[in-house]
């Protein structure tokens, strides 16, 4: 479903991605882990077509995201949901309007159908009663859940999560992960999740890839990651220093 081939990207001479290769099968979720600033979010934005690579390809369902333009790109993006690290809710709109916005603009649903759908999505993420509030009136966890409701409102086939639990307390973080898990079971989307939440995340995802210095250091199942002898992987999973582990 998603295939990344030999992807290179640099900013002002600084190489962020150096020949990344990755594949995510249909209906599976891949966790992308790695140190802050190692290029995880940049990789995710390439998959969404928000960035163009210097070299390499990102194939989503066979379509090269780097070459898609105009209507073709918009059509593909209609099948995609993206949960931003900050939520990226429209701050001039209420939570209800935020979730209803893509439905109003992209579908021919009637007002009462949109209302039913939005209320259903808000119920799924536990935000019933908060629909009239504005993003600035919500806590970090509520913003993430509202953003999740908005991303899921269009029944996406592909979901991209950019650090969905960063900045949240452990309990709220776990709630978000449980929510992602239940939504995945319900909608069967293909997903990539950029995260630091190891080993918590291992229960939710099917595969894990660790990115280091712009390259994929290790890719495998959660079990393989946990058993890895690589000092950087071990240090990341246990929270220790690579040298201590060596």
């Amino acid at each position, binding site marked *: 479903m998603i295939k990344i081939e030999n992807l290179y990207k640099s900013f002002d001479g600084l190489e962020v991605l150096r020949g990344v290769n990755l594949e995510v099968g249909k209906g599976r979720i891949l966790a992308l882990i790695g140190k802050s600033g190692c290029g995880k979010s940049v990789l995710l934005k390439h998959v969404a077509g928000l960035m163009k690579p210097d070299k390499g390809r990102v194939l989503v369902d066979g379509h090269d995201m780097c070459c898609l333009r105009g209507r073709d790109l918009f059509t593909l993006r*209609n099948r995609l949901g993206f949960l*931003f690290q900050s939520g*990226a809710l*429209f*701050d001039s709109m209420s939570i209800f309007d935020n979730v209803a916005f893509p439905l109003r603009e992209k579908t021919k649903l009637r007002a009462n159908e949109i209302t039913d759908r939005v209320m259903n999505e808000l119920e799924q993420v536990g935000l019933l009663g908060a629909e009239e509030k504005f993003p600035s009136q919500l806590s970090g966890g509520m913003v993430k859940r509202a953003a999740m409701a908005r991303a899921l409102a269009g029944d996406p086939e592909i979901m991209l999560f950019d650090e969905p639990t960063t900045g949240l307390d452990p309990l709220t973080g776990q709630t978000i992960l449980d929510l992602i898990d239940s939504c995945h079971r319900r909608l069967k989307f293909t997903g990539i999740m950029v995260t630091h939440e190891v080993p918590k995340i291992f229960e939710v995802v099917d595969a894990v890839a660790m990115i280091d210095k712009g390259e994929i250091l290790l890719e495998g199942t959660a079990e393989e990651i946990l058993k890895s002898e690589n000092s950087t992987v071990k240090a990341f999973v246990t929270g220790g220093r690579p040298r201590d582990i060596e």
Partner: protein
Amino acid sequence: MDLVRKLGESAIKALFRLGRMGIFLAKAFAFSVTPPVKLSLLIKQIQFIGFQSISVIFLTGAFTGMVLGYQGFNTLSRFGSDAFLGPMVGLSLIKEMGPVISALMVTGRAGSSITAEIGIMRISEQIDALELMGLNPYRYLIVPRLLAAIVCLPLLTAIFDVIGIFGGYLIGVKMLGLSSGVYFGEMVSYVEMGDILEGLIKSLNFGVIIAWVCCFKGFHTGFYTGFGAEGVSKATTQAVVLSSVLILVWDYFLTSTRIFL
């Protein structure tokens, strides 16, 4: 050699940015003339750029007219031509000061706000979110503001002109004793329809400049100015300065070449 290389690099960068601005404007116009135009957003922007600017236009128009009344009367009296105060105030306002000062006021009041709002949407990834929904950010953010500026600037200029003329009347007729009939009579004789159209066409041009520059700077916040609050603040300052300078330069260009006029 180093200096030559640096100069060349700067020139290429400047050309690249100019090209990007040109493409941005071309896209904005292309989406403005192809459906769907978001009518509710357009009305909201007309309310923001136009209606909410009326008070500042009213004030600046009145005081500009009053100053013109004083200065004009004092200058014309030296030549015994104070009867021409009406045409002087009218022509100055209608052809030059009305369009230019209105545009500068709208740049300060609405233009800065446009850049800041779009800039914050850029750095908080709201524009990315819009794109990822498969929606065109030009149609939602740029086109309504461009069309609203095109509609509002000539109207605001017309209000500025009328208020300014009455400001001049207040000083020339009510305070300095010129006859009301002379003030308006001479104005009607000397101000032609072409003069009024010239001012309105100028203001329409300035509307495009304000929306173009302010939207571009907001939309590209982070690319040239750095992200974060500092990036938005820099983008806003750049937008106001560049719009104001372009308005004055374009005004000179329009006046001297009489293109569009």
